[in-house]
């Protein structure tokens, strides 16, 4: 296999809130992403998905652990060259589009900003052209370029964020819930577009989403996060056809299907960490088979796999 594009080792991110209270958002998470691959990250709300993304792209300083990107360590102090490489080759599509788009800027300037900073275009005309093309690719029209973010619907705004990330042709895109505000047809269009761009440029995605049918469709490998721990990881087939961890099982059982008669009767498997007797901090990575791993103690592993 080729060299990993991104290597996350033992990433930990804690937020001290007060003297007596620290949020342990991410606890010793490790995974790799290879060039041209899509890694899906799923898990409970508040389990640390966004935080992992923000720590990787260095919106936070990791509490501990090492992150390597294109062979360079990017989790410690950054020199100018590494910082520049990071800004050009890694992009993030943010979960909350309204909060991440400058409300006083027109959409063309929001999308074109990266082009200006990295001197990717030689004329205003070229920029307008590129921005227009991207708007069209994400299902908007060049006429939208002159509008401000608040003049869009939620899903249109989300696509502005997607266009802003894609225009830079980065090597890694961290896509945080980037399709959740889109109707299914436009979701399909955007996901197809992301796949096309991947075929063309061999870029990789860290795809964070809660829509499991979409995650299953787009990802090569999947990591399942709960309370800041990576509780299970593997190829999508391994995770979906043979979930081992009780959290993963409960998650998969709760996926709602577009079938009203079935849905109104369904009772998902419940899982309550507090009463389960499981202590994630005691678990270690156990190999289920292939590339399929689960966080467990030896005893838990035996009982979950027997």
């Amino acid at each position, binding site marked *: 296999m080729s060299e990993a594009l991104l290597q996350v080792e033992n990433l930990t991110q804690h*937020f001290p*809130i*007060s003297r007596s*209270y620290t*949020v342990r958002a991410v606890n010793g998470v490790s995974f790799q992403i290879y060039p041209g691959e899509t890694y899906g990250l799923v898990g*409970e*709300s*508040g*389990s640390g*998905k*966004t935080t992992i993304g923000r720590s990787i792209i260095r919106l936070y300083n990791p509490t501990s652990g090492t992150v390597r990107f294109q062979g360079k360590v990017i989790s410690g102090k950054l020199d100018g060259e590494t910082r520049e490489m990071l800004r050009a080759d890694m992009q993030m599509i943010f*979960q*909350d*589009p*309204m*909060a991440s788009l400058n409300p006083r800027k027109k959409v063309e300037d929001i999308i074109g900003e990266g082009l200006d900073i990295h001197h990717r275009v030689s004329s205003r005309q070229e920029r307008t052209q590129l921005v227009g093309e991207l708007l069209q690719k994400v299902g908007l*029209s060049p*006429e939208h370029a*002159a*509008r401000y973010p*608040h*003049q*869009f*619907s*939620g*899903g*249109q*705004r989300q696509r502005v964020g997607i266009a802003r990330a894609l225009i830079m042709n980065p090597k890694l895109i961290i896509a*945080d*819930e980037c399709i*959740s*505000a889109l*109707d*299914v*047809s*436009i*979701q*399909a269009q955007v*996901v*197809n577009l992301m796949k096309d761009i991947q075929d063309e440029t061999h870029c990789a995605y860290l795809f964070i989403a*809660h829509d*499991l*049918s979409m995650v299953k*469709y787009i990802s090569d490998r999947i990591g399942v996060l709960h309370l800041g721990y990576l509780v299970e990881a593997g190829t999508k087939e391994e995770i979906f056809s043979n979930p081992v961890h009780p959290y993963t099982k409960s*998650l998969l059982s*709760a*996926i*709602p*299907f*577009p*079938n*009203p*008669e*079935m*849905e*109104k*009767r*369904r009772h*998902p498997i419940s*899982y309550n960490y507090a009463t389960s007797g499981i202590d994630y901090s005691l678990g270690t990575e156990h190999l289920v088979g292939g590339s399929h791993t689960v966080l467990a103690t030896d005893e838990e592993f035996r009982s979950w796999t027997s």
Partner: protein
Amino acid sequence: MSAKTILKIQNLDISFRTNAGVIHAIRGVDLDLQKGETVAIVGESGSGKSVTMKAVVGLLDSNATINSGEILYTFEDESGNDQTIDLLRISRKQLRQTINGQHIAMVFQDPMTSLDPTMPIGKQIMEGILMHRNLSRAEARARALELLHLVGITDAEKRFRNYPHQLSGGMRQRVVIAIALSADPDILICDEPTTALDVTIQARILELIKDIQEKMKLSVIYITHDLGVVAKVADYVDVMYAGKIVEVGNVNEIFYDPRHPYTWGLLSAMPDMETDDDRLYSIPGSPPNLLHEPVGDAFADRNPFALAIDKKAMPPLFKISETHYAATWLLHPDAPKIEMPESLRLRLERARKEVEKLHE
């Protein structure tokens, strides 16, 4: 029918002034909500779902013009008598004081826009409670904690003093839901309330709202792209396209017997757990730019089944059953008989078979 209509939107028509011209975003929307029931609005991104509901709570952007329509809201006054008012004919201030939050609460699509970034979330929930109810601060605090707990936020005591940016996206979304519920509304409008929630927490929130609905006779409008959620919660479904409702029916009619070609496209685009095609189906073309008024059926250009008349005249709503209507010329008695795409028909058949298996 004994059901009572609590909200009735009639012929709502709204446009926006922009630099580029006038955008005719809402083009004659009708919608009914019965007391205690759940309506889901689905449809194209940008079709006008949020704008329609913002009109209900009087929070349209300042560049909006309401060209016509009425929004009739029926509620019980202090002496227990039914009162009906047109929400578009009372002043914004009146609307905000009496209707907003008190009787009709809305959870907005983008949680960050409805939270104050400079105020701890506990305080924000308490303020909502104190505004609508005559409680002491200690009581309001207890109620706020209870609500946080109900929406599944653990360590509610500790989270109380967190600022919005210190919460995850889904936690913020749940705080906004807690604020909406804090006012004991009789209509709850949720605009994409669960987009940032994993399916287990989503199930919990939907259950919570259902519970309150049963206890308090709450009526709910969901705007959502998640057809699984719609299947789970909705009694009725309204399908919107380009500023109009193009199909409405009870949830079974929409999911097992859809009639509008846009609804066909929407249902086809949803990947099910078995999808492993190389590409997902998406409806070809793009939605009409409402800067230019569409002639005829706004969906015609993207509709492989379009008839000649679609390019000339706007189809009326044709009646399919007491509860099921669709605005497509395909339903005209003289139209050629056209069936839904084969792949969709097979998928719906599979869905029906699953249900039959369940009954055996």
